[in-house]
């Protein structure tokens, strides 16, 4: 992706205000809540976004991305400072500016009980698009989004990717000067994500629209012309993606060893001094170090031989992790060791040791088949990933596996128990962490832990031991007295996981545990999963982050209620191998599967 800007303004000073400025923030602060519960979403933020091009906003959860978007759209008023959008002060001229911008909120603002055409017409009415201009504009938008065949369909019945595209089309009914997109691609399948990007890029180039877009996917930041990185309400860095990459130039390597699996190697590397980040990448472990001298094999993986280390070109994500670790410093918890002392890793079970057996599982809601006949098996001690876009049927499958939802057809055995007959017997042996964490938000961390331990029937010494274990292993002791609803997302996720593991289940189901979490929290989470699997716990996990598939032993790709592929991540990745693409990613494979699926329809 080439940059459209000659050189970025790295100083971040608002002094050099060019006439071509789309957004200018000066000393902007925004707080939520009052008194002791005050949270500063933005603190003394000053920045400038030039006209033209796509500017990306990235940052961990709670960095202030959405608040920034809403301030620029005139949806909120800042407590201090000044927001100037398209050369007008937003606090004074909100209505006038709103006539010149397009905005797509995170939940895309569609009326689900209105059809595609009715949604478009509503937004055209609201934006004052003259009737005679509409047929042409609508046709162009529909053709671009591929929604033309679905004009009469209710928006609520569209797939996740199509909803996002319709949301985007609604924001574009009248060619806006500035387009604000708040995480437009979250939870969407990778092909739809690419299509959305193509649409945005086309508008930027053909109509000269300035685009400000926040995203949780760091690979998307690389497609932007400029990137703003926020952390805890402050601007951490800004520049072109190339500038970001230069920050870690010469400090990114990949290593592998035939003696260890990438996951084992990663666990080892992460604990080493000088290592900023270690992530799985196909058969390699991608490592970012603080200085090249720490990239030696004997330093990264002492006692392992042979180890291959080679330098690779940096990506945006590497710089992001580097900048974040520098900013958050010692606040970042050190590497995690969840494995209990003495608990030796259960020998990799034989193939016969199947703990989950699913055969032609189906579930129908009304006339909609959420799960349309899937079959797979999971072995003891395995990490099994279920990948798919929002609405693919992942959560429905999980609920059936946990006995929370009766299947419409098929057989399913969990821990040797037929879930259709005796779900209660199996439940004591499984742990379930739902997407929304299911914590009692008004209870403190300790009260939540106590409640779940008693709900699972723990008593006396064992209960005390497990409570102690949860506080230690999930680093919750410091917040034991805090209301869980007040905690940052990362802590909530840890607490929810501790609750689900309280009774030492054999099988754990984790539904979208990393959704909405920042990359740092996601890395830690996978370390915990790794440690659990090492103890012989079977882990089933759903995610819509493609790169996370690498952390699984085996995985399934789910599209529209069906399994498109079940295999090891490596084999799935290689499905997309071709002379033009010798080193495909999981995402490439996923996109191929979606294309095949769309062709079948």
């Amino acid at each position, binding site marked *: 992706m080439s940059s459209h800007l000659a050189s970025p303004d790295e100083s971040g000073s608002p002094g050099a205000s060019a006439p071509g400025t789309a957004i200018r923030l000066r000393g902007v602060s925004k707080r939520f809540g009052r008194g002791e519960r005050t949270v500063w979403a933005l603190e003394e933020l000053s920045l400038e976004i030039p006209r033209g091009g796509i500017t990306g906003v990235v940052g961990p959860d709670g960095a202030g991305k959405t608040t920034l978007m809403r301030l620029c759209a005139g949806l909120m008023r800042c407590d201090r400072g000044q927001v100037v959008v398209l050369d007008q002060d937003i606090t004074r001229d909100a209505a006038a500016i709103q006539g010149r911008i397009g905005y797509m909120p995170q939940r895309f603002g569609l009326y689900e009980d209105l059809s595609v055409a009715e949604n478009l017409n509503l937004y055209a009415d*609201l934006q004052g698009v003259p009737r005679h201009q509409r047929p042409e504009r609508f046709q162009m938008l529909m053709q671009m989004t591929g929604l033309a065949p679905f004009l009469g369909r209710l928006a609520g019945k569209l797939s996740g990717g199509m909803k996002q595209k319709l949301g985007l089309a609604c924001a574009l009914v009248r060619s806006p000067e500035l387009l604000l997109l708040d995480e437009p691609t979250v939870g969407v399948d990778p092909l739809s994500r690419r299509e959305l990007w193509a649409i945005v890029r086309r508008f930027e180039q053909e109509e000269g629209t300035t685009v400000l877009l926040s995203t949780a996917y760091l690979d998307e930041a690389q497609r932007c012309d400029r990137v703003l990185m926020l952390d805890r309400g402050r601007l951490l860095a800004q520049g072109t993606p190339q500038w970001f990459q230069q920050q870690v130039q010469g400090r990114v390597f990949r290593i592998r060893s035939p003696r260890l699996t990438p996951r084992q190697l990663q666990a080892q590397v992460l604990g080493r001094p000088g290592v900023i980040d270690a992530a799985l990448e196909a058969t390699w472990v991608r490592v970012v170090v603080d200085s090249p001298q720490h990239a030696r094999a004997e330093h990264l993986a002492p006692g392992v031989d042979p180890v291959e280390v080679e330098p690779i070109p940096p990506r945006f994500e590497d710089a992001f992790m580097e900048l974040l670790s520098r900013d958050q410093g010692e606040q970042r918890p050190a590497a995690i060791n969840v494995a209990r002392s003495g608990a030796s890793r259960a020998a990799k079970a034989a193939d016969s040791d199947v703990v989950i057996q699913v055969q032609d599982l189906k579930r129908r809601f009304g006339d909609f088949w959420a799960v349309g006949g899937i079959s797979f098996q999971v072995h003891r001690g395995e990490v099994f990933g279920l990948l798919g876009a929002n609405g693919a049927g992942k959560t429905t499958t999980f609920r059936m596996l946990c006995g929370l939802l009766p299947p419409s057809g098929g057989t399913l055995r969990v821990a040797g128990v037929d879930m259709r007959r005796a779900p209660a017997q199996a439940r004591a042996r499984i742990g379930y962490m739902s997407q929304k964490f299911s914590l009692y938000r008004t209870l403190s961390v300790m009260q939540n832990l106590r409640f779940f331990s008693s709900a699972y029937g723990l008593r006396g010494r064992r209960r005390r031991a497990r409570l102690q274990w949860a506080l230690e292993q999930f680093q919750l002791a410091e917040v034991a007295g805090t209301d869980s609803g007040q905690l940052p997302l990362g802590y909530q996720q840890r607490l929810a996981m501790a609750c689900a593991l309280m009774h030492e289940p054999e099988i754990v189901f984790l539904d979208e545990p990393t959704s909405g979490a920042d990359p740092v929290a996601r890395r830690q989470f996978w370390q915990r999963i790794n440690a659990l699997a090492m103890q012989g716990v079977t882990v089933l996990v759903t995610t819509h982050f493609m790169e996370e598939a690498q952390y699984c032993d085996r995985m399934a790709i789910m599209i529209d209620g069906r399994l498109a592929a079940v295999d090891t991540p490596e084999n799935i990745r290689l499905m997309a191998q071709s002379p033009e693409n010798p080193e495909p990613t999981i995402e490439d494979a996923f996109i191929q599967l979606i294309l095949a699926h769309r062709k079948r329809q």
Partner: protein
Amino acid sequence: MTTPKPFAPAARHRLMRLRGLVRKEWLQIWRDPSSIAIAFLLPVVLLLLFGYGVSLDAKDVPLALVVDNPNPDTMTLCGHFERSKYLRPVYFVNMRHAQQAMLRRQVSAILRLRDDFSRENLQRRGTIQLIVNGTDANTARIVTGYVQGVYARWLADVQQRRRAFPPPPIQVQHRVWYNANLRSRNYLVPGLVAIIMTLIGALLTAMVMAREWERGTIEALMTTPVSMGEVLLGKVIPYFGLGLGGMALSVAMARWVFDVPFRGSMLALLAGSVLFLLVALGLGLLISTTARNQFVAGQVAIIVTFLPAFILSGFIFDIRSMPWPIRALTAIIPARHFVTILQNVFLAGDVWPLLLPSMGVLALMALVFLGLSYRKSPKRLD
């Protein structure tokens, strides 16, 4: 909210936006079975329930008769009771049995004619003993009245037949005005119209506005050039129409299914309904400015509008018999004024001196609530 002059949208644009919003709202109402149910099914169910099921009249009340010494006089008195359509006499040989029957709720009252009944009666010192089950105070009062009425008629009869005594100098001739048959249905059904319109106006509006917040659609609405006044108007117009539809349905049912008389004019009915509907809509919108999820909005709307309309509007419970603080409280219950208007228009006709003050209060309330909800809806999320 400020609308800067150079970019002030033309009236044409404003109209286009408003039309878009109203159309959207209609489509949503039409496709959401629950709003159709509240607007049309609920009125029918409520009307049938109150029209047929709930009645404050006492009919065929079982009355225990204990006659110590049967003679021609007691026979004719019992005959009068037999002919009453409100009472159903049951004979008992002694008081003990009658009391047991009362305990088992087989009878609501006991009338005892002692063995000296004839003699005493003729000496104009006649006393009869009436014991009434006071558990249900309302029925007890009605039964007492009925028994006295029957007894008085019998006495007059006897006197006339025997010409033994001159007729009493003053005779009470009572007439019941406005509801000659004292059918409770005649005043319950018009009162119900107020309840139904409260439901459509306040409950439905509060919930649909909260739905915009809950589903996040308000966020997308707010970033368009639309003004909050237009958004509110876009809600008021469709639900105003829906409310009038619900009212027409209720009035038609009252008139032709329940035979409630309609003595006033359509004009008075329409004027009162329009004003009340505006008040209800204003309240609904006001609730939704603070309660931003459907569940809370629904609960608040029921507690703030529906329950007071039921209990404090004079629809079932007479306001004049309430203690004064509560009586004072009813003055700020919109439904109370509307019930006054409705009962007047249906049963008495257009009594303008009574209607106008109530309409004035409603107009004032509509202004206050609609104005407040406009003031409290800034075009911002925080």
